[in-house]
């Protein structure tokens, strides 16, 4: 690990990066300041990647709760604009961001349309059919909800793209002090997901081989999901045995091979998040568009 990148700021290099570290090399990679991930750090680590994953959870709450509390396009619009301006500091490449935003963007028209037709009627009425009424009010709400979906989706993607589950687990156990049994169990479960993907693929091919591949995708998927559940229970049992064989749960205290701490980057990141919310809500109040949900 290069000096500087990790020192003093907690659990900190992007673990997704390298595979080339040499186990035999005399590095200081396991000491406190190096924070435990082993690859030589890339020359520049994005500022957000120096923030402890637990802090990222807190930031996610800061950035989303106010967005749920008000329903106006200005606050959400300002928040989205500020967050986009900060993309370079998150280390998430624009292309990755674009790809991950696709589901969010797909969801927007669904939310917008239902608001448009069934939002609280008010102001001028433009069109109606049965209980569906398009009014001035519902148009405004529809626009507001579209921006809001983006304002909720964008920070989640930016905060958690490339967060290593292992680092998150280290943080939850050492910083948030959650019970290690729970944290390690969940982590091991996440790791098993790739096995389930392989299981699913093999089962799909096997159904084709057995003459069941032509019809009934839905029914087939349901029955495969059931078998996958059986596999999951069985794999889980085996894994639990393997973990127990390595002393998991046998001793009252457990140590951690990787340290996870809070550093300078953490309060800074929280402050930035609070500032984003202050500015966006402030703008909305100043322009008189601020409105509590339900008021």
């Amino acid at each position, binding site marked *: 690990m290069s000096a500087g990148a990790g020192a003093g700021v907690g659990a900190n290099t992007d*673990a997704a990066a*390298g*595979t*080339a*570290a*040499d*186990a*035999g090399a005399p590095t200081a*990679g*396991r*000491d*406190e300041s190096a924070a435990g*991930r*082993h*690859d030589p750090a890339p020359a520049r680590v994005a500022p957000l990647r120096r923030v402890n994953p637990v802090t990222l959870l807190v930031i996610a709450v800061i950035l989303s709760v106010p967005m749920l509390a008000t329903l106006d396009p200005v606050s959400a619009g300002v928040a989205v604009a500020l967050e986009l301006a900060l993309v370079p500091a998150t280390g998430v490449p624009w292309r990755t961001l674009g790809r991950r935003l696709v589901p969010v963007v797909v969801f927007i028209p669904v939310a917008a349309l239902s608001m448009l037709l069934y939002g609280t009627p008010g102001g001028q009425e433009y069109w109606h059919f049965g209980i569906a009424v398009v009014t001035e009010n519902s148009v405004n709400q529809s626009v507001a909800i579209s921006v809001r979906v983006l304002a909720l989706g964008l920070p989640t993607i930016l905060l958690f793209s490339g967060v*290593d*589950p*292992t680092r998150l687990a280290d943080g939850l156990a050492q910083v948030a002090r959650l019970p290690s049994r729970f944290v*390690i169990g969940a*982590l*091991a479960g996440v*790791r098993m997901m*790739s096995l389930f993907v392989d*299981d699913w*693929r*093999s*089962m799909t*091919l*096997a*159904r*084709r*081989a*057995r*003459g*069941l*591949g*032509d019809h009934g995708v839905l029914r087939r998927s349901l*029955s495969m999901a059931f*078998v996958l559940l059986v*596999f999951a229970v069985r*794999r889980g049992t*085996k*894994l639990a*045995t*393997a*973990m127990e*064989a*390595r*002393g*998991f*749960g*046998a*001793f009252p*205290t*457990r*140590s*951690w*091979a*990787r*340290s996870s701490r809070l550093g300078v980057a953490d309060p800074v990141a929280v402050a930035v998040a609070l500032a984003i919310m202050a500015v966006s809500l402030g703008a909305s109040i100043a322009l008189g568009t601020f409105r509590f949900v339900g008021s």
Partner: protein
Amino acid sequence: MASGARVTVEGWGWRHAGRRLPAVSDLDLTIEPGQRVLLVGASGAGKSTTLAGIAGLLGGSDEGDQTGRILVDGRPPELQRGRIGMVLQDPDAQLVMSTVGDDAAFGCENLGLPREEIWARVRRGLAQVGLELGLDHPTTRLSGGQKQRLALAGVLAMGPGLIILDEPTANLDPDGIAEVRAAVEHVLEVTGATLIVVEHRTTVWSGLVDRVVALGVGGEGVVADGPPARVFAEDGAALEAAGLWIPGSVSPCPRADAVDLGGPALRLDDLAVARERRGPVVRSGITRSVRFGEAVGITGANGTGKSTLALTLAGLLPEAAGAVLASDELRAGAGPRPSRWRSTQLLTRIGTVFQDPEHQFVTSRVRDELAVGLRALAIDRVRVDERVDELLARLRLDALADANPFTLSGGQKRRLSVATLLATSPRIIVLDEPTFGQDRRSWGDLVTLLQQMRAEGGTIVSVTHDAEYLQALGDTVWHLGSVSERSAA
């Protein structure tokens, strides 16, 4: 480094909760520090239960009833976790973390060791098993043999005095087996730890252990005990009958008589294969052909694309480039490319047996399982029943007709997975590692069955690492890696 642990088993027995009969009863066994023991016995002899008992993994009284006692260095194994290290059969089931370093460190963390100490031990453990890929190497990118060595390294880092291996090489290719064996040998020399290993293919370990202990079925306890050479000489026949391969074992199914090959069945034309649609190509430029009646064996190291080639050839995966072309005789009215056939068209033309039989079970009764393909072909009820009865009898599954396929033994599952495919009489059968993890008896059952099909004119394409299997069912060997074809005659 810790020295070897002593294991004493005194009148020990274990009955799993809810079972009528004990898995093990009245077992007496003493293993001296530093001894290397190969534990053998037929399936049902309670080897795995005994290992789990010695490792302290059977759980408390709600998991079963214990009689007698087991001591490791004079204390119950549950209190000796750090002294006992165990490696299990399934390489995928025992990886806990996502990188090599983190996984090797997991046991030490549980022991509560200080951080500097953990990483020093992890480095040493990985060096001892020869796995120096870097601490950040993802565990998903390891081969089976590497995964088993990693599990061993994680155990070693804990500094155990007793190493327990439960069929550590049953799921590995020959390279992986050699890697794991060499790693174990080195580790024992360096640490002086006591070893207990269970394996059907005893030849792998016979040169390394200094004692063989054979367990009998039905609570007979230890039926043979002594140096490998003596036990194999005196009790060899009984051990073979119990399903073991012992050094010098002759294959239960010798090479079948040559059959006359028929016309062309499949042609691979400059084929490239990929595990997923539009995924990365794992192998390309394959030009080969298969004739009716031929038995083709596909071999080669891990990651050379054997299984992917087999699944593509079987019409289950689309070709990444080039084509798999069926001859007119095989097509019998269907299109030229098996990958474009409907699922029901495959049934009577090309059948596939998957590496894990459970992946292909779709019902909850053995009888229904055999009928699936026939029903998909819309064959009338009476004839389906006749055919199913015939298959049940032929494959000795009749007593299990109403059992749930998922509850069968490994050998039975394998037989059933082959039987389901025989039901619709495909002209070509493709098998992916059919003999992985099978003991000698179920191995013999399977190979005999395939040889019978062969004699009846069936065409068989198998992905395998198994030399004896290739002897019995590989007229033509496709060795991926060098991509050279040779006759195995």
